[in-house]
């Protein structure tokens, strides 16, 4: 993908399988939104081959639209409508594409309940808070019971409770409706909770593609070991936690209490990777990440 004479996406190769929840991570400006918009068929690409649900998103049919759902970063549309009339209206377009094993649209009452907007069903959308508005956006994205759902920073501005409820919604979609989900987020904890697989985009390339767990394991970050002995607190960082613990216990035995071993998290892995990239070592970073294991 190219803007003017600057290539912004140069090495974006990945496959998402039906029913997978995949999270696209990356620093601001890495090209996450551009990537997702190309897949949604909202943006022309300058080169490359893309297939989404068997079609090139550049020339998609309305039947393809009926099988996908989109939740974008910023909607402010339909301020004068109420959630009920709007979901009835938007959902109506999916009705001709209903099949016995995938009835479309999701009935409005059921959908309002799923996103927790039942009590606000008759209120003007312009009066909604940011989080309520976002839940309505999600409802409109899934009203057609999509087989593939695109979520661009879906939980930005959510409070922790709304975030947890949203995670339930995504799990529900993936488990019960067999929906394939591609989401972008800045919340690494969210990626760890939701995603079957994580893609990290940096400098226009996919520099990592694996489960959150594997990525964390690969991060060349020390393991942190904490313990107390004789009322004193100790912290030690080590590459080899097992060997260190054996020595520690051999030496002090029962005197070691409150033992805590913290492995590298996805966040550690992510930050390390992005830092390396920003230090101009993206090629190296990508190589290390693909070759370490």
């Amino acid at each position, binding site marked *: 993908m190219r803007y003017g004479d600057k290539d912004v996406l140069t090495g974006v190769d990945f496959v998402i399988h*039906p029913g997978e929840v995949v999270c696209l991570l990356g620093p601001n400006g890495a090209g996450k*939104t*551009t990537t997702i*918009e190309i897949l*949604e068929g*909202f*943006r022309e690409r300058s080169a490359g081959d893309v297939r989404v*649900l*068997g079609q090139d998103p550049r020339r998609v049919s*309305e*039947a393809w*639209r*009926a*099988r*996908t*759902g*989109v939740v*974008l*970063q*910023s*909607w*402010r*549309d*339909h*301020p*004068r*409508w109420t959630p009920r*009339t709007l979901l009835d*209206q*938007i959902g*109506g*377009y*999916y*009705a*001709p*594409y209903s*099949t016995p094993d995938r009835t479309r649209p999701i009935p409005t009452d059921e959908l309002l309940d799923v996103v927790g907007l039942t009590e606000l069903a008759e209120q003007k959308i312009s009066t909604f808070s940011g989080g309520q508005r976002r839940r309505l956006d999600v409802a*409109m994205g899934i009203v*057609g019971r999509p*087989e593939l759902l695109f979520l*661009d920073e879906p939980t930005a501005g959510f409070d922790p409770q709304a975030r947890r409820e949203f995670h339930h919604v995504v799990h529900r979609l993936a488990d019960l409706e067999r929906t394939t989900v591609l989401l972008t987020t800045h919340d690494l904890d969210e990626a760890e909770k939701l995603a079957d697989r994580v893609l990290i985009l940096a400098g226009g390339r996919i520099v990592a593609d694996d489960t959150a767990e594997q990525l964390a394991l690969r991060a060349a970050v020390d393991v942190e070991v904490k313990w107390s002995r004789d009322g004193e607190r100790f912290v030690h960082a080590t590459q080899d936690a097992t060997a260190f613990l054996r020595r520690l216990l051999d030496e002090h035995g029962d005197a070691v209490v409150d033992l805590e071993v913290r492995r590298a998290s996805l966040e550690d892995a992510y930050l390390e990777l992005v830092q390396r990239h920003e230090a101009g070592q993206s090629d190296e970073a990508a190589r290390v990440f693909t070759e370490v294991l």
Partner: protein
Amino acid sequence: MTVQPVPSSPVLHAVRLGLRRGWTEFVQSLRSSQDQWFYLFTAFLAVGYLYLRRDTPVEGTDLMLPSVALPSILGGLLAFGLVIGPAYSLAMEKEDGTLLRAKAVPHGLVGYFAGQLVLHSSSIVPQMVAVLVPSFLLFDDLMADPSGWFTVVWVLVLGLLATLPIGMMIGAVVPNAQKVGMWGMLPVMVLAGISGIFYPIQALWGWVQVIAQIFPMYWLGLGMRSAFMPDSAATVEIGDSWRTLETVLALGAWAVVGALVAPALLRRMARRQSGSQVAAAREAATQWVK
């Protein structure tokens, strides 16, 4: 995953949803104090002007000013509303994501544009009621012959077909809603000044008359005058005639041009819509100093 069979006509289904959408938005508009204020304010200005000059005789006729100016102003107001209304809605809905939402839904754009047509066509009803009701209560000799209402209807329909696509085209090409003032409001105001709405067009230079007669606003005003005023008053017009055939041809030509060009421009606009464009518009709207 298998290809799903599509029942009879999803397009027709979308048109029906679009009609309902337009009606819903029309009802919302009637209930919105913002829109009520617009209708009442324009009507107040128009009727106020007529009231102040209710005893001014019109040269060459035995009529008072309101009998001549009301149909002209009505034509001008309709042209204004039917150009600026859709231009603003499209420009704003490009920015707030409404159009993109329609694009993300199967045949959503069909429904969106059907809704726009219904919304803006029906908006002429409150506009007319707000001007006509007080006028008929305050002034005499407004409608020379009841058969004139028939003329009002066909002039309205043709005027609608001629002006609504212009508004949609402006809305499709303006870069943002703040530019509608420059690209839409300004030219329409200038046209209102030269189209024989507030004073006879013959008072202007010949070349200005020619320009005015290219655009539909003049013909909407003329058609309305022919509907409301007695045939004997045609002497105040160019060529001492209501020029009914020319009115039909001029408005019809704009309707044809609109029907041919507007869909292409709207398709181009829809193709260019993307989420980052909506996000950028949001940024730009909050950034006043550039």
